[in-house]
Protein backbone atom coordinates (compact mmCIF):
# COMPACT_ATOMS: atom_id res chain seq x y z
CA UNK A 1 0.00 0.00 0.00
CA UNK A 2 1.32 3.45 -0.86
CA UNK A 3 2.46 5.31 2.27
CA UNK A 4 0.19 8.15 3.33
CA UNK A 5 1.30 11.66 4.11
CA UNK A 6 2.05 12.42 7.74
CA UNK A 7 -0.98 14.71 7.94
CA UNK A 8 -3.32 12.09 6.52
CA UNK A 9 -1.94 9.45 8.84
CA UNK A 10 -2.43 11.80 11.80
CA UNK A 11 -6.05 12.60 10.91
CA UNK A 12 -6.76 8.92 10.32
CA UNK A 13 -5.23 7.68 13.57
CA UNK A 14 -6.39 10.65 15.67
CA UNK A 15 -9.48 12.03 13.98
CA UNK A 16 -10.81 15.30 15.32
CA UNK A 17 -14.47 15.97 16.20
CA UNK A 18 -15.85 12.46 15.80
CA UNK A 19 -19.40 12.38 17.03
CA UNK A 20 -22.93 13.66 16.59
CA UNK A 21 -24.97 16.76 17.26
CA UNK A 22 -28.71 16.80 17.84
CA UNK A 23 -30.07 16.77 14.31
CA UNK A 24 -33.43 18.03 15.51
CA UNK A 25 -31.94 21.23 16.94
CA UNK A 26 -32.69 24.30 14.81
CA UNK A 27 -29.08 25.48 15.01
CA UNK A 28 -27.70 22.23 13.61
CA UNK A 29 -27.25 21.45 9.94
CA UNK A 30 -26.81 17.80 8.93
CA UNK A 31 -25.44 16.55 5.62
CA UNK A 32 -25.15 12.87 4.69
CA UNK A 33 -23.52 11.96 1.38
CA UNK A 34 -22.21 8.87 -0.35
CA UNK A 35 -23.41 5.26 -0.41
CA UNK A 36 -22.29 1.98 1.09
CA UNK A 37 -22.00 0.56 -2.42
CA UNK A 38 -19.23 2.98 -3.29
CA UNK A 39 -17.55 2.35 0.06
CA UNK A 40 -18.00 5.86 1.43
CA UNK A 41 -20.74 7.38 3.61
CA UNK A 42 -20.02 10.71 5.26
CA UNK A 43 -22.20 12.41 7.85
CA UNK A 44 -21.24 15.99 8.65
CA UNK A 45 -23.00 18.17 11.20
CA UNK A 46 -22.48 21.87 11.95
CA UNK A 47 -23.58 23.95 14.94
CA UNK A 48 -24.20 27.54 13.86
CA UNK A 49 -24.29 30.40 16.40
CA UNK A 50 -26.86 33.27 16.26
CA UNK A 51 -24.44 35.46 14.27
CA UNK A 52 -24.16 32.85 11.51
CA UNK A 53 -20.71 31.58 12.42
CA UNK A 54 -20.03 27.85 12.54
CA UNK A 55 -19.25 27.23 16.19
CA UNK A 56 -18.39 23.56 15.88
CA UNK A 57 -18.67 20.54 13.59
CA UNK A 58 -18.88 16.81 14.05
CA UNK A 59 -18.47 13.92 11.65
CA UNK A 60 -19.01 10.20 11.26
CA UNK A 61 -17.51 8.42 8.25
CA UNK A 62 -17.67 4.95 6.77
CA UNK A 63 -14.78 4.85 4.34
CA UNK A 64 -11.09 4.41 3.76
CA UNK A 65 -8.34 6.23 5.63
CA UNK A 66 -8.36 9.13 3.15
CA UNK A 67 -12.10 9.55 3.65
CA UNK A 68 -11.82 9.60 7.42
CA UNK A 69 -8.93 12.05 7.24
CA UNK A 70 -10.81 14.33 4.81
CA UNK A 71 -13.81 14.43 7.12
CA UNK A 72 -11.69 15.15 10.16
CA UNK A 73 -9.84 17.96 8.40
CA UNK A 74 -13.11 19.51 7.22
CA UNK A 75 -14.43 19.78 10.78
CA UNK A 76 -11.29 21.74 11.68
CA UNK A 77 -11.53 23.97 8.62
CA UNK A 78 -15.18 24.85 9.27
CA UNK A 79 -14.65 26.12 12.77
CA UNK A 80 -15.20 29.87 12.96
CA UNK A 81 -16.27 30.24 9.33
CA UNK A 82 -19.42 31.91 8.06
CA UNK A 83 -21.80 29.79 6.00
CA UNK A 84 -20.60 31.48 2.80
CA UNK A 85 -16.99 30.84 3.71
CA UNK A 86 -17.87 27.21 4.41
CA UNK A 87 -19.47 26.82 0.99
CA UNK A 88 -16.33 28.32 -0.55
CA UNK A 89 -14.04 25.60 0.81
CA UNK A 90 -12.69 23.91 -2.30
CA UNK A 91 -11.81 20.21 -2.38
CA UNK A 92 -8.31 21.08 -3.58
CA UNK A 93 -7.60 22.61 -0.16
CA UNK A 94 -8.35 19.27 1.46
CA UNK A 95 -6.52 17.29 -1.21
CA UNK A 96 -3.40 19.39 -0.88
CA UNK A 97 -3.35 19.43 2.91
CA UNK A 98 -3.57 15.63 2.99
CA UNK A 99 -1.46 15.11 -0.15
CA UNK A 100 -4.18 12.87 -1.59
CA UNK A 101 -3.15 10.70 -4.53
CA UNK A 102 -5.36 10.99 -7.66
CA UNK A 103 -7.24 7.79 -6.84
CA UNK A 104 -8.42 9.34 -3.53
CA UNK A 105 -9.47 12.75 -4.76
CA UNK A 106 -13.12 11.72 -4.65
CA UNK A 107 -12.85 11.62 -0.84
CA UNK A 108 -12.14 15.35 -0.77
CA UNK A 109 -14.93 16.04 -3.26
CA UNK A 110 -17.45 14.14 -1.21
CA UNK A 111 -16.31 16.02 1.89
CA UNK A 112 -17.14 19.36 0.24
CA UNK A 113 -20.49 17.94 -0.90
CA UNK A 114 -21.17 17.12 2.73
CA UNK A 115 -20.47 20.75 3.66
CA UNK A 116 -23.00 21.93 1.07
CA UNK A 117 -25.57 19.43 2.31
CA UNK A 118 -25.09 20.47 5.95
CA UNK A 119 -25.27 24.20 5.17
CA UNK A 120 -28.40 23.70 3.05
CA UNK A 121 -30.02 21.66 5.76
CA UNK A 122 -29.33 24.43 8.31
CA UNK A 123 -30.61 27.14 5.97
CA UNK A 124 -33.75 25.14 5.29
CA UNK A 125 -34.53 25.09 9.00
CA UNK A 126 -34.24 28.90 9.29
CA UNK A 127 -37.06 29.50 6.86
Amino acid at each position, binding site marked *: *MKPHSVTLEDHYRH*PRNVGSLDAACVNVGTG*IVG*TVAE*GLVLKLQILVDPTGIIESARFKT*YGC*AAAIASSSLVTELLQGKTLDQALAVHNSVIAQALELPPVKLHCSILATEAITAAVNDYKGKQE
Partner: protein
Amino acid sequence: MVRPPVYLDYAATTPVDPRVVDCMVPWLYEKFGNPASNTHAYGWDAEEAVQQARVHVADLVGADAREIVFTSGATESNNLAIKGAAASHSARGKHIITVVTEHKAVLDPCHELEQHGYEVTYLGVQDNGLLNLESVRAALRPDTILVSVMLVNNEIGVIQDIAAIGMLCRENGTLFHVDAAQATGKVGINLQELPVDLMSFSAHKTYGPKGIGALYIRRKPPVRISAQMHGGGHEKGFRSGTLATHQIVGMGEAFRLAKQEMAVENSRILGLRQRLWDGLSLLDAVYLNGDLNQRVPHNLNVSFEYVEGESLIMALDKLAVSSGSACTSASLEPSYTLRAIGRSDELAHSSIRFSLGRYTSEQDIDFTIQVVAQELARLREISPLWDLAQQGTDLAATPWASSAAGKISA
Protein backbone atom coordinates in the same frame (compact mmCIF):
# COMPACT_ATOMS: atom_id res chain seq x y z
CA MET B 1 12.21 -0.71 18.66
CA VAL B 2 9.11 -1.27 16.56
CA ARG B 3 7.90 -4.83 16.85
CA PRO B 4 7.39 -6.46 13.43
CA PRO B 5 3.79 -7.35 12.59
CA VAL B 6 2.50 -10.66 13.89
CA TYR B 7 2.48 -12.97 10.88
CA LEU B 8 -0.92 -14.50 10.22
CA ASP B 9 -0.68 -14.81 6.47
CA TYR B 10 0.59 -18.39 6.12
CA ALA B 11 -1.84 -18.96 3.26
CA ALA B 12 0.07 -16.36 1.26
CA THR B 13 3.44 -17.95 1.97
CA THR B 14 5.40 -19.62 4.74
CA PRO B 15 8.90 -19.08 6.09
CA VAL B 16 11.30 -21.79 4.96
CA ASP B 17 11.81 -24.16 7.88
CA PRO B 18 15.43 -23.85 9.11
CA ARG B 19 15.78 -27.62 8.79
CA VAL B 20 14.86 -27.29 5.12
CA VAL B 21 17.39 -24.51 4.55
CA ASP B 22 20.12 -26.64 6.13
CA CYS B 23 19.37 -29.45 3.69
CA MET B 24 19.44 -27.11 0.70
CA VAL B 25 22.72 -25.29 1.31
CA PRO B 26 25.25 -28.01 0.34
CA TRP B 27 23.58 -28.22 -3.08
CA LEU B 28 24.46 -24.59 -3.69
CA TYR B 29 28.08 -24.83 -2.54
CA GLU B 30 30.11 -27.99 -2.99
CA LYS B 31 27.51 -30.25 -4.55
CA PHE B 32 26.46 -28.00 -7.39
CA GLY B 33 26.37 -30.56 -10.17
CA ASN B 34 23.69 -30.73 -12.83
CA PRO B 35 21.51 -33.79 -12.13
CA ALA B 36 21.50 -34.49 -15.87
CA SER B 37 25.32 -34.79 -15.99
CA ASN B 38 25.54 -38.55 -16.02
CA THR B 39 29.28 -38.80 -16.62
CA HIS B 40 30.66 -37.74 -13.24
CA ALA B 41 29.99 -37.81 -9.51
CA TYR B 42 28.85 -34.18 -9.41
CA GLY B 43 25.89 -35.14 -11.57
CA TRP B 44 25.33 -38.55 -9.98
CA ASP B 45 25.15 -37.04 -6.49
CA ALA B 46 22.70 -34.39 -7.59
CA GLU B 47 20.60 -36.93 -9.42
CA GLU B 48 20.44 -39.11 -6.33
CA ALA B 49 19.37 -36.16 -4.17
CA VAL B 50 16.62 -35.29 -6.65
CA GLN B 51 15.41 -38.85 -6.63
CA GLN B 52 15.34 -38.94 -2.84
CA ALA B 53 13.33 -35.70 -2.80
CA ARG B 54 10.95 -37.14 -5.36
CA VAL B 55 10.28 -40.04 -3.02
CA HIS B 56 9.61 -37.67 -0.09
CA VAL B 57 7.10 -35.68 -2.16
CA ALA B 58 5.40 -38.86 -3.35
CA ASP B 59 5.25 -40.29 0.18
CA LEU B 60 3.30 -37.32 1.54
CA VAL B 61 0.57 -37.86 -1.01
CA GLY B 62 0.47 -41.63 -1.46
CA ALA B 63 1.95 -41.54 -4.93
CA ASP B 64 4.76 -43.36 -6.69
CA ALA B 65 7.96 -41.33 -7.19
CA ARG B 66 7.68 -41.93 -10.94
CA GLU B 67 4.43 -39.97 -10.92
CA ILE B 68 6.05 -36.74 -9.68
CA VAL B 69 7.21 -34.08 -12.16
CA PHE B 70 9.01 -31.05 -10.76
CA THR B 71 7.97 -27.58 -11.93
CA SER B 72 8.60 -23.98 -10.89
CA GLY B 73 5.55 -23.97 -8.66
CA ALA B 74 1.85 -24.76 -8.46
CA THR B 75 1.01 -22.07 -11.02
CA GLU B 76 3.17 -23.82 -13.58
CA SER B 77 1.78 -27.21 -12.53
CA ASN B 78 -1.77 -25.92 -13.06
CA ASN B 79 -0.85 -24.55 -16.48
CA LEU B 80 0.81 -27.83 -17.45
CA ALA B 81 -2.13 -29.90 -16.26
CA ILE B 82 -4.87 -27.78 -17.80
CA LYS B 83 -3.28 -26.73 -21.07
CA GLY B 84 -1.51 -30.08 -21.37
CA ALA B 85 -4.71 -32.09 -20.93
CA ALA B 86 -6.65 -29.78 -23.23
CA ALA B 87 -4.11 -30.13 -26.01
CA SER B 88 -3.80 -33.90 -25.70
CA HIS B 89 -7.48 -34.67 -25.66
CA SER B 90 -8.95 -32.06 -27.97
CA ALA B 91 -9.92 -34.73 -30.48
CA ARG B 92 -12.23 -36.24 -27.92
CA GLY B 93 -13.80 -32.95 -26.87
CA LYS B 94 -13.20 -29.34 -25.96
CA HIS B 95 -15.33 -28.89 -22.84
CA ILE B 96 -13.73 -28.16 -19.47
CA ILE B 97 -15.40 -27.75 -16.09
CA THR B 98 -14.00 -25.76 -13.20
CA VAL B 99 -15.28 -23.65 -10.27
CA VAL B 100 -15.67 -19.88 -9.82
CA THR B 101 -13.71 -20.01 -6.57
CA GLU B 102 -10.54 -21.48 -8.10
CA HIS B 103 -7.23 -19.64 -7.89
CA LYS B 104 -6.31 -17.39 -10.81
CA ALA B 105 -3.65 -19.97 -11.68
CA VAL B 106 -6.53 -22.23 -12.78
CA LEU B 107 -9.04 -19.62 -13.98
CA ASP B 108 -6.60 -17.75 -16.21
CA PRO B 109 -5.39 -20.83 -18.13
CA CYS B 110 -9.08 -21.66 -18.64
CA HIS B 111 -9.78 -18.16 -19.95
CA GLU B 112 -6.81 -18.57 -22.24
CA LEU B 113 -8.16 -21.86 -23.59
CA GLU B 114 -11.49 -20.15 -24.28
CA GLN B 115 -9.60 -17.93 -26.71
CA HIS B 116 -8.58 -21.08 -28.54
CA GLY B 117 -11.96 -22.65 -29.06
CA TYR B 118 -12.45 -24.48 -25.78
CA GLU B 119 -15.68 -24.16 -23.83
CA VAL B 120 -15.40 -23.77 -20.07
CA THR B 121 -18.18 -24.16 -17.50
CA TYR B 122 -17.51 -22.28 -14.28
CA LEU B 123 -19.62 -23.90 -11.54
CA GLY B 124 -20.96 -21.80 -8.67
CA VAL B 125 -20.68 -22.88 -5.05
CA GLN B 126 -23.04 -22.98 -2.10
CA ASP B 127 -22.97 -20.32 0.62
CA ASN B 128 -20.59 -22.45 2.66
CA GLY B 129 -18.13 -22.45 -0.22
CA LEU B 130 -18.61 -26.11 -1.10
CA LEU B 131 -19.59 -27.51 -4.49
CA ASN B 132 -22.94 -29.20 -4.87
CA LEU B 133 -22.20 -32.60 -6.40
CA GLU B 134 -25.39 -32.47 -8.42
CA SER B 135 -24.14 -29.40 -10.25
CA VAL B 136 -20.99 -31.29 -11.23
CA ARG B 137 -23.00 -34.27 -12.43
CA ALA B 138 -25.30 -32.00 -14.42
CA ALA B 139 -22.41 -30.20 -16.08
CA LEU B 140 -20.52 -33.30 -17.24
CA ARG B 141 -20.99 -34.07 -20.93
CA PRO B 142 -19.64 -36.69 -23.33
CA ASP B 143 -17.22 -34.09 -24.68
CA THR B 144 -15.92 -32.98 -21.25
CA ILE B 145 -12.22 -33.76 -21.21
CA LEU B 146 -11.15 -32.17 -17.93
CA VAL B 147 -12.55 -31.14 -14.57
CA SER B 148 -10.43 -28.97 -12.27
CA VAL B 149 -11.35 -28.44 -8.61
CA MET B 150 -9.03 -27.27 -5.83
CA LEU B 151 -8.75 -29.41 -2.72
CA VAL B 152 -8.42 -26.50 -0.27
CA ASN B 153 -9.51 -22.95 -1.05
CA ASN B 154 -6.87 -20.27 -0.51
CA GLU B 155 -9.25 -17.57 0.75
CA ILE B 156 -11.70 -19.42 2.97
CA GLY B 157 -9.87 -22.71 3.53
CA VAL B 158 -12.81 -24.97 2.72
CA ILE B 159 -12.15 -28.56 1.67
CA GLN B 160 -13.94 -29.87 -1.43
CA ASP B 161 -15.13 -33.47 -1.64
CA ILE B 162 -12.48 -34.52 -4.12
CA ALA B 163 -13.18 -38.23 -3.73
CA ALA B 164 -16.83 -37.86 -4.75
CA ILE B 165 -16.12 -35.45 -7.59
CA GLY B 166 -13.41 -37.80 -8.85
CA MET B 167 -15.85 -40.70 -8.96
CA LEU B 168 -18.22 -38.67 -11.15
CA CYS B 169 -15.33 -37.89 -13.49
CA ARG B 170 -14.33 -41.55 -13.69
CA GLU B 171 -17.88 -42.55 -14.57
CA ASN B 172 -17.85 -39.96 -17.33
CA GLY B 173 -14.40 -40.86 -18.65
CA THR B 174 -13.14 -37.36 -17.85
CA LEU B 175 -9.72 -36.41 -16.49
CA PHE B 176 -9.71 -34.90 -13.02
CA HIS B 177 -7.17 -32.28 -11.96
CA VAL B 178 -6.86 -31.01 -8.40
CA ASP B 179 -4.93 -27.92 -7.29
CA ALA B 180 -3.57 -28.99 -3.91
CA ALA B 181 -1.29 -26.00 -3.33
CA GLN B 182 -3.03 -25.08 -0.06
CA ALA B 183 -3.57 -28.67 1.01
CA THR B 184 -0.19 -30.33 1.55
CA GLY B 185 0.62 -30.68 5.22
CA LYS B 186 -2.89 -29.58 6.14
CA VAL B 187 -5.09 -32.47 5.05
CA GLY B 188 -4.28 -36.09 4.38
CA ILE B 189 -3.92 -36.93 0.68
CA ASN B 190 -3.77 -40.51 -0.55
CA LEU B 191 -3.58 -40.77 -4.30
CA GLN B 192 -3.72 -44.54 -4.10
CA GLU B 193 -7.34 -44.12 -3.09
CA LEU B 194 -8.37 -40.80 -4.59
CA PRO B 195 -9.68 -40.99 -8.17
CA VAL B 196 -7.50 -38.08 -9.26
CA ASP B 197 -5.43 -37.96 -12.44
CA LEU B 198 -3.42 -34.78 -11.99
CA MET B 199 -2.53 -32.90 -8.82
CA SER B 200 -0.56 -29.66 -8.36
CA PHE B 201 1.76 -29.00 -5.43
CA SER B 202 3.56 -25.93 -4.13
CA ALA B 203 6.59 -25.92 -1.84
CA HIS B 204 6.33 -22.43 -0.42
CA LYS B 205 2.95 -23.02 1.22
CA THR B 206 4.46 -25.92 3.18
CA TYR B 207 7.60 -24.34 4.66
CA GLY B 208 9.68 -24.94 1.52
CA PRO B 209 11.30 -22.37 -0.78
CA LYS B 210 9.45 -20.32 -3.35
CA GLY B 211 9.97 -21.17 -7.00
CA ILE B 212 9.50 -24.95 -6.87
CA GLY B 213 6.48 -27.19 -7.12
CA ALA B 214 5.37 -30.43 -8.67
CA LEU B 215 2.66 -32.05 -10.74
CA TYR B 216 1.42 -35.55 -9.99
CA ILE B 217 0.59 -37.43 -13.20
CA ARG B 218 -1.11 -40.78 -12.66
CA ARG B 219 0.52 -43.89 -14.13
CA LYS B 220 -2.25 -46.37 -13.49
CA PRO B 221 -4.31 -45.86 -15.54
CA PRO B 222 -1.83 -43.72 -17.52
CA VAL B 223 -2.63 -40.07 -18.11
CA ARG B 224 -1.53 -38.29 -21.26
CA ILE B 225 -0.80 -34.55 -21.28
CA SER B 226 1.23 -32.38 -23.67
CA ALA B 227 4.37 -30.73 -22.33
CA GLN B 228 4.34 -26.95 -22.13
CA MET B 229 8.11 -26.45 -21.69
CA HIS B 230 10.33 -27.93 -24.38
CA GLY B 231 14.08 -28.19 -24.52
CA GLY B 232 15.96 -31.29 -23.45
CA GLY B 233 13.17 -33.61 -22.47
CA HIS B 234 13.73 -33.55 -18.70
CA GLU B 235 11.17 -35.14 -16.36
CA LYS B 236 10.31 -37.82 -18.94
CA GLY B 237 9.56 -35.14 -21.48
CA PHE B 238 6.86 -33.54 -19.35
CA ARG B 239 8.93 -30.55 -18.29
CA SER B 240 12.21 -29.55 -19.83
CA GLY B 241 14.75 -27.47 -17.99
CA THR B 242 17.71 -28.21 -15.77
CA LEU B 243 16.50 -29.40 -12.40
CA ALA B 244 17.24 -27.00 -9.54
CA THR B 245 18.71 -29.53 -7.14
CA HIS B 246 18.75 -27.25 -4.10
CA GLN B 247 15.10 -26.28 -4.67
CA ILE B 248 14.02 -29.85 -5.15
CA VAL B 249 15.91 -31.03 -2.09
CA GLY B 250 14.18 -28.23 -0.18
CA MET B 251 10.75 -29.26 -1.35
CA GLY B 252 11.51 -32.89 -0.55
CA GLU B 253 12.59 -32.10 2.98
CA ALA B 254 9.64 -29.77 3.54
CA PHE B 255 7.22 -32.48 2.46
CA ARG B 256 9.03 -35.11 4.52
CA LEU B 257 8.68 -32.92 7.62
CA ALA B 258 5.05 -32.25 6.79
CA LYS B 259 4.27 -35.95 6.73
CA GLN B 260 6.11 -36.45 10.00
CA GLU B 261 4.59 -33.52 11.89
CA MET B 262 1.21 -32.92 10.30
CA ALA B 263 -0.99 -34.68 12.83
CA VAL B 264 0.47 -33.01 15.91
CA GLU B 265 0.83 -29.63 14.24
CA ASN B 266 -2.72 -29.54 12.91
CA SER B 267 -4.11 -30.41 16.30
CA ARG B 268 -2.19 -27.53 17.88
CA ILE B 269 -3.25 -25.13 15.15
CA LEU B 270 -6.88 -26.18 15.43
CA GLY B 271 -6.74 -25.20 19.10
CA LEU B 272 -5.25 -21.83 18.25
CA ARG B 273 -7.83 -21.18 15.53
CA GLN B 274 -10.60 -22.06 17.91
CA ARG B 275 -9.14 -19.62 20.43
CA LEU B 276 -9.06 -16.91 17.77
CA TRP B 277 -12.64 -17.52 16.65
CA ASP B 278 -13.80 -17.71 20.27
CA GLY B 279 -12.35 -14.24 20.78
CA LEU B 280 -13.55 -12.70 17.53
CA SER B 281 -17.05 -14.16 17.54
CA LEU B 282 -17.75 -12.27 20.78
CA LEU B 283 -17.62 -9.04 18.78
CA ASP B 284 -20.81 -7.69 17.27
CA ALA B 285 -21.72 -8.04 13.60
CA VAL B 286 -18.84 -10.36 12.72
CA TYR B 287 -19.42 -13.11 10.14
CA LEU B 288 -17.44 -16.22 9.34
CA ASN B 289 -16.93 -16.78 5.61
CA GLY B 290 -17.10 -20.41 4.52
CA ASP B 291 -17.95 -23.63 6.31
CA LEU B 292 -16.34 -23.93 9.74
CA ASN B 293 -16.12 -27.70 9.72
CA GLN B 294 -15.21 -28.63 6.16
CA ARG B 295 -12.22 -26.37 6.52
CA VAL B 296 -8.51 -26.66 7.21
CA PRO B 297 -7.61 -25.75 10.80
CA HIS B 298 -5.27 -22.96 9.67
CA ASN B 299 -7.80 -20.64 8.09
CA LEU B 300 -10.21 -18.11 9.51
CA ASN B 301 -11.88 -15.63 7.15
CA VAL B 302 -14.13 -13.07 8.79
CA SER B 303 -16.18 -10.11 7.61
CA PHE B 304 -16.58 -7.12 9.91
CA GLU B 305 -19.72 -5.15 9.24
CA TYR B 306 -20.11 -1.36 9.35
CA VAL B 307 -16.44 -0.61 8.76
CA GLU B 308 -14.83 -0.15 5.39
CA GLY B 309 -12.24 -2.70 4.27
CA GLU B 310 -9.26 -0.50 3.47
CA SER B 311 -9.55 1.46 6.68
CA LEU B 312 -9.75 -1.85 8.55
CA ILE B 313 -6.65 -3.29 6.93
CA MET B 314 -4.76 -0.07 7.72
CA ALA B 315 -5.91 -0.21 11.30
CA LEU B 316 -4.57 -3.75 11.62
CA ASP B 317 -1.02 -2.80 10.70
CA LYS B 318 0.32 -4.62 13.75
CA LEU B 319 -0.83 -7.84 12.05
CA ALA B 320 0.26 -9.33 8.75
CA VAL B 321 -3.03 -10.53 7.30
CA SER B 322 -4.76 -10.21 3.97
CA SER B 323 -8.14 -8.85 3.05
CA GLY B 324 -10.90 -9.28 0.54
CA SER B 325 -10.76 -5.58 -0.13
CA ALA B 326 -9.35 -4.34 -3.37
CA CYS B 327 -9.70 -0.67 -2.54
CA THR B 328 -6.10 -0.02 -3.43
CA SER B 329 -6.17 -2.00 -6.63
CA ALA B 330 -7.13 -0.49 -9.96
CA SER B 331 -10.36 -2.41 -10.33
CA LEU B 332 -11.96 -1.64 -6.92
CA GLU B 333 -13.59 -5.07 -7.04
CA PRO B 334 -13.94 -7.14 -3.90
CA SER B 335 -12.87 -10.75 -3.54
CA TYR B 336 -14.57 -12.92 -6.18
CA THR B 337 -14.54 -15.90 -3.85
CA LEU B 338 -16.48 -14.07 -1.17
CA ARG B 339 -18.95 -12.79 -3.75
CA ALA B 340 -19.34 -16.39 -4.95
CA ILE B 341 -20.45 -17.52 -1.48
CA GLY B 342 -23.10 -14.84 -1.46
CA ARG B 343 -21.48 -12.01 0.48
CA SER B 344 -22.53 -8.47 -0.46
CA ASP B 345 -19.89 -6.13 -1.87
CA GLU B 346 -19.73 -4.42 1.51
CA LEU B 347 -19.06 -7.60 3.49
CA ALA B 348 -16.67 -8.91 0.84
CA HIS B 349 -14.71 -5.63 1.04
CA SER B 350 -14.52 -5.72 4.85
CA SER B 351 -13.23 -9.27 5.18
CA ILE B 352 -9.95 -10.30 6.75
CA ARG B 353 -8.21 -13.64 6.19
CA PHE B 354 -6.24 -14.90 9.19
CA SER B 355 -4.12 -17.95 8.32
CA LEU B 356 -2.13 -19.64 11.09
CA GLY B 357 0.97 -21.78 10.84
CA ARG B 358 3.88 -23.63 12.36
CA TYR B 359 5.28 -20.66 14.28
CA THR B 360 2.01 -19.11 15.48
CA SER B 361 1.83 -18.90 19.26
CA GLU B 362 -0.96 -18.45 21.78
CA GLN B 363 0.39 -14.97 22.55
CA ASP B 364 0.07 -14.14 18.85
CA ILE B 365 -3.59 -15.15 18.96
CA ASP B 366 -4.34 -13.20 22.13
CA PHE B 367 -2.59 -10.13 20.74
CA THR B 368 -4.58 -10.46 17.52
CA ILE B 369 -7.91 -10.60 19.34
CA GLN B 370 -6.93 -7.55 21.35
CA VAL B 371 -5.84 -5.53 18.31
CA VAL B 372 -8.89 -6.46 16.25
CA ALA B 373 -11.30 -5.68 19.10
CA GLN B 374 -9.61 -2.35 19.75
CA GLU B 375 -9.41 -1.17 16.15
CA LEU B 376 -12.87 -2.43 15.27
CA ALA B 377 -14.32 -0.45 18.17
CA ARG B 378 -12.37 2.62 17.12
CA LEU B 379 -13.55 2.45 13.50
CA ARG B 380 -17.13 1.72 14.50
CA GLU B 381 -17.06 4.78 16.77
CA ILE B 382 -16.30 6.77 13.63
CA SER B 383 -18.85 4.97 11.45
CA PRO B 384 -22.30 6.44 10.77
CA LEU B 385 -23.52 2.99 9.71
CA TRP B 386 -22.71 1.58 13.11
CA ASP B 387 -24.68 4.46 14.66
CA LEU B 388 -27.70 3.67 12.51
CA ALA B 389 -27.44 -0.03 13.28
CA GLN B 390 -27.30 0.70 17.00
CA GLN B 391 -30.47 2.76 16.64
CA GLY B 392 -32.14 -0.14 14.89
CA THR B 393 -32.49 1.62 11.56
CA ASP B 394 -32.90 -0.60 8.51
CA LEU B 395 -29.97 0.49 6.38
CA ALA B 396 -31.56 -0.74 3.20
CA ALA B 397 -34.37 1.77 3.62
CA THR B 398 -31.99 4.72 3.73
CA PRO B 399 -31.00 6.62 0.59
CA TRP B 400 -27.29 6.08 1.20
CA ALA B 401 -27.24 2.35 1.63
CA SER B 402 -26.23 -0.18 -0.97
CA SER B 403 -28.87 -2.76 -1.73
CA ALA B 404 -28.75 -4.96 1.32
CA ALA B 405 -29.95 -7.87 -0.79
CA GLY B 406 -27.45 -10.65 -0.74
CA LYS B 407 -26.14 -9.86 2.71
CA ILE B 408 -26.07 -13.01 4.77
CA SER B 409 -26.18 -13.10 8.54
CA ALA B 410 -24.09 -15.82 10.11
